[in-house]
């Protein structure tokens, strides 16, 4: 790969891709595939599906690079997050959400003081709580808490004002906290 490409910013790489440069495309994929995989995985909870979505999004970009319009002044990553998220939401609608257990029975009636639940059960419950949140709250918590994006960027991706984004994060965390607490209390009984 041309080392010059590695120093170019995303927007310049896209301009090269618009001219048909496969090397620029490779540089962009190399730089960002893991980042977009992470958010896709958070939304679809499956490695295969998340990888397929990231591939589909990048191939769309390769086929129609003019979809990204520099005139709109959106950062490439902000715009591409939206592309990936939309594909994830479409897939979720198709799959009617991930099959998560409705109610989880405790593996052990008398768990030890340190091990309350089986790790997998705990993860499944947490996943369910997150997936039960309204769509925009899910996006807010995934982008801000799990991906560590700034409130500004997350707000742009979701398409809301920063204040609204902060409110989404707060509501999501409050709901999650009360659900987790309720669940842990049940475990301690």
């Amino acid at each position: 790969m041309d080392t010059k490409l590695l120093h170019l910013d995303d927007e310049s790489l896209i301009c090269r891709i618009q001219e048909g440069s496969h090397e620029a495309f490779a540089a962009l994929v190399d730089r960002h595939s893991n980042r977009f995989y992470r958010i896709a995985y958070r939304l679809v909870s499956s490695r295969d599906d998340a990888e397929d979505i990231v591939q589909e999004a990048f191939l769309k970009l390769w086929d129609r690079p003019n979809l990204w319009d520099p005139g709109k002044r959106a950062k490439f990553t902000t715009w591409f997050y939206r592309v990936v998220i939309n594909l994830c939401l479409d897939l979720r609608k198709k799959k009617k959400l991930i099959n998560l257990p409705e109610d989880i029975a405790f593996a052990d009636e008398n768990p030890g003081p340190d091990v309350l639940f089986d790790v997998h059960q705990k993860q499944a419950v947490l996943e369910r709580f997150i997936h039960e949140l309204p769509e925009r709250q899910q996006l807010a918590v995934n982008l801000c808490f799990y991906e560590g994006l700034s409130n500004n960027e997350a707000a742009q991706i979701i398409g809301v004002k920063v204040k609204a984004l902060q409110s989404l994060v707060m509501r999501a965390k409050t709901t999650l906290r009360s659900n987790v607490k309720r669940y842990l209390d049940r475990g301690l009984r």
Partner: protein
Amino acid sequence: MTMKFEHFKEKLLMYGADVQCWPKDIRSSGLKALDSSYELQKLVKDEERFEGVLKTRKYEEPSRDLAGRIVAAALPKKKKAQRNLGVLFSEVLSEFSLSRRALAAVSVSLIFTLVIGFTIGYSNPSGYVSGEQYTTNLEDFLNYEGDVL
């Protein structure tokens, strides 16, 4: 100026348990408030525990070759889309890795040969056969009974 309890609680939810990572404009007042209040310290501890639970969420790393796979999948796609005579011609030429000068010389000689060919073809009177002559020759052919040996 230190922060009030409710305001601190709100920021805690918004920006997380690590006050050092809060936005600059509220960080120092947040830290001051935290230093001076046992209640707030308890609140932060509680938030840390909650965030710890959130961080236990399942995550699987992507395949190592994810990027390579995407790049490879894009290559034949574009080639197929762009397949036309011009692209084909340039691909064939690039196989021979000719310099620009050599490429120009080859092109000029090809065009020159074509022009000469057309000129000779159009200006050659011997190749011209009139309709009348053709009809006559056809009649001769039909009436031909063969040579007597």
